[in-house]
Every structure is written in C-alpha cells, then in structure tokens.
C-alpha cells in the first residue's frame, strides 16, 4: 500500500538504549508487539523499563492480534508541519486493544478522510512499510472492519 501521509515527516527510530526496538522490529515484520509482565500477565503500553503493577524490571515482548476498536479520534484540518501542507484533512484514531488489557495505540484511520468516525467501531491494523526511508521503518495504520 502507499503511505497514508506524504513523505517528509520525522522518521521513528528506537531509542539509543533500545527500549522500544522490539516494537519497531515487529512492525517491519508485520507483527504488533507490546510489553507484558511475565509474572502477572499485565499488558503495558507504551514501552517502559519497569512493570507498573509489581515494579519488576523483566518484561516480555509479546505478539498481539492486530485488531482493536476506536476509543477516540480527531480529524486534522490545520497542518503544523511543512510535509502536511497538502495532506489535510487526515484522521488520527486512538485504538484500544481489548484482548491485550485495553492498551491503546495511535494511528491513522485509512479510507476517506472525510468519513464519519464511530467510537467503538472495530478496526484492524494495516502495516505501512517504508523500505526506502533512511532508516527504513514501518507504521501500524488502522482500517474499519465491516461486519460480513
């Protein structure tokens, strides 16, 4: 697929200390990963060094099903970056993952940027790869799953 937003935005890279590297590596392989506390099963997002429930430092990276539901959203009409001058409107969604402790992620809602957005709608991730970027990276975008 082509990218939802035009090129020229800052490229996401893992921190020098590598905290979120498994997430970004996962996206490049088309897999959605979050942190989980192996002692309690707590899902945690965004990445952190310590589990907030038992303050243990050992956290697993686990693959989670790339689906969720829209928890909230905004439609952006006013660009605040030169790369987005001709890209408005575009939709940003906050997606909740019920099967992963209701952690939330953020992405764009694919499709018509003027579509009506329904909070609670089921969505699935679409991995948006940027192999020619320097360095290459991938994003997790979302699209509405229509009941079949």
């Amino acid at each position, binding site marked *: 697929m082509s990218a939802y937003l035009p090129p020229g935005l800052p490229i*996401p890279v893992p*921190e020098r200390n590598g905290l*979120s590297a498994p997430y970004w590596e996962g996206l490049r392989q088309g897999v959605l990963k979050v942190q989980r506390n192996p002692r309690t099963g707590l899902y945690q997002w*965004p990445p952190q060094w310590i589990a907030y429930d038992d303050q243990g430092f050992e956290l697993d990276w686990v693959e989670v099903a790339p689906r969720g539901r829209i928890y*909230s959203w905004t439609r952006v009409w006013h660009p*605040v970056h030169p790369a987005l001058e001709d890209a408005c409107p575009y939709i940003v969604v*906050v997606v909740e993952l019920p099967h992963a402790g209701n952690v*939330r992620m953020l992405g764009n809602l694919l499709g018509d940027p003027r579509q009506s957005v329904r909070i609670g709608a089921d969505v699935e991730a679409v991995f948006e790869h940027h192999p020619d970027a320097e360095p290459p990276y991938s994003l997790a975008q979302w699209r509405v799953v229509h009941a079949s």
Partner: protein
Amino acid sequence: MSERSLRGRVAVAGVGETQYYRHGQAPEPEFVLCLKAILAACADAGLDPTDIDGFASYSNDRNDPPTLATALGVKELRFSNMQWGGGGGGGAGAVANAAAAVATGLADCVVVYRALAQGQFGRFGQGPRAPTLSGDLALTVPYGQMSPAQWYAPKVTRFMHEHDVGQAALRAIALASYHHAQSNPRAVMYGRPLTEAAYDASRWITEPFHLYDCCQENDGAAALIVVSAARARDLKQTPAYVLAAAIGAGFRVHSTPAGFATPDLASSHFQTLAPRLYAMAGVGPADVDVVQCYENFTGGVLMSLVEHGFFAPDEAMDFLTLENLIAPCGKLPLNTSGGNLAECYMHGLELQIEAVRQLRGQSTAQVPDVNVSLAAAGPMVTPVSTVLFGSEATL
C-alpha cells in the same frame, strides 16, 4: 485548620504585566519583558524589588532566578524554583510553590513569573522538524499528531461522546472569553468581539476544535508577588489570601505525547486534585464566586469545570451558556479578563492575576462581592494545578 495547610498564611500582594502582544511583535527581548513585569508587580505591591528573595516559575521558563536576581540587585536569593512538568499546567503550581516557601520560612518575598516572546524563540503550535524521533514522540508524530491541539483533541472527543456534549458548550466557553476581553484594554482581542456565527463559520483546526477553541500565542510577561499574610496587610493592595493550592494528576496520566495511553483519557486530570483543594480551603464549589480556568483549548475547560465540581458531566449543555459564564451576574463568571483565548496567552499566569484582581475589586469585568476566587492551570496535561484565593472575610 491542620498545621499542614496553606490556608490564610500567605497572600498575593502585587500583580503586574507588560503590554501583551501578538506573537513575534514584542519590541524588547524576552528577558527585559520579564524584568518589567516583575517591577510592575513590585510597584503594585509597594515593594522594593531588591527585597525579592525568591523566584518561582514553570514550563522551563528561559529566565532563570540567578540571572534575574543579579540583574535586579536582589540582596539575597533564598528560593529558586521551577515547577517540573505539565507546561502551562504549572501556573498555579508555581504560585503554590511560592506560597509553600513563604509559609514554611524558606523565603519572605517570592515572585512568580512567566515571560514568553515566542517570536524570539519558537512557537508551541508547530510540529517537530527533526529528521528522526524516538520515544513517545515516535508513537504519534509519524501519524501527523504533533501539536497540542492534536494531542488533546481525542480526550475532548471522548468526553463529548460519553456525555453527549455538543459543540455549543465549547462555543459558550470561547464566547465568554471574547466577551470579557471587550472590556479589558490589556486584551489582545480588545475591540475584536466574537459572535456565535463567526465561531460557527470559523475553520476547524482539528476536530472538535474550531479556530476559536484554541488559545492564542503571544509575547509578553506577567508576575505576581507572594508574601506572608501579615506582611500583605501592611502593603498597598487588598491581600488575596491563598486559601488552598493543589498540584497533581491521577493514576498513570502520561505526559503529553503518550497521553493517548492514559487510562482516564476523557479527563482534564483535576479529579484527584479538586477534593484536596477544597478540603484545604474549607470551602466547596458552591462557594466559588468567580473562576479563571486555563484555556489551551475550550474542551479542556469543559472537563476542568466538571472536575472542580461546578456541574455534572451530563449537565454541561445546560450549564455552559454564555449567559451563565459572564460577569457580573452569570451563575459562574469564567475567564473574566479574556483569558488565554482573548486577553493573552501568558501561559495562564494572566489567569492567576485576574483571580487576584477579582478579589480586589479591580477587574475590568468585575463580579460583585467576590470572596472566593479560583484559578486553575493545565488542563489535560500532567501535573495540573489550582489555587483558591480568598478575601479577608473568608479567613
């Protein structure tokens, strides 16, 4: 009164500001603006600026206390304080820190200040230009979510969804600020009234925020002086006593870029703070005569007013009407100087000053017989903060 309380111990004795400018239009360096605001606050109080012995600010203000103290000829520096985190959410927190310093004897005369000349440094409402990003920013910026309006909009959207709040509630908040600015010659939007039709016709910035739901960006500086209650009584102005102050946020409220992950997304984050505030003050929401509530965006004011107990979420559409929000006779006069939207975005310090002026009877949109005056800083960031000021009669 518990010994561990600020109630009645300290007061704001002086307030001052420079002329307020549109961003980029200040004719002087930011540091000079800062000095002039401090001198204005000292003159208002009738204090010698060299008697200042403490400085408190927030949001990483660029004008540091040692430089200010040496420039002003301060005799002795005793308190050098920065409220950490939360940007403009620290506005009341800086007053709280100054009050705590005076109440506990760390310092005697603390100036709370904020100076912003965005034209000389850079604006808040622009996205990052770095070629790469890491950490929480990497989770939002590549998706085009990179300005405060964009970060906070989903919080408000969710709240409006949960409580069936319509755009008219946000509009009433914007109209109230612009209404009050028309009687305030300091206001950048003085002489520029806003109508319902103009609000409705204004462009979206990011839904649910129209242009007029968003604060200005400005140049200028503001300051206020905190001293002991006893000393304030001997100075020029009617003291605005600190009845209470509180700083904070609830469980796992993430800093702005990762705000999407905050469990209680649909919040301005005053829920845990408000009960502490009222308990220290010994008053409740019904006792509050006038409210200054930080408008980064109107939707944050909506949630802040709910969380300070002025109405229930489901009453928002009935409560938030222009008639209810304007001085002198509205049910809850709000942002009576014009606030961040229409007086000046002095990062909310102008709201603290206006809360003091209401208690002194010096507002340009004066509410009659003010005894309890609230000024909230923040919303939707972490930590947020609020101060309750009271008259002599409340002590």
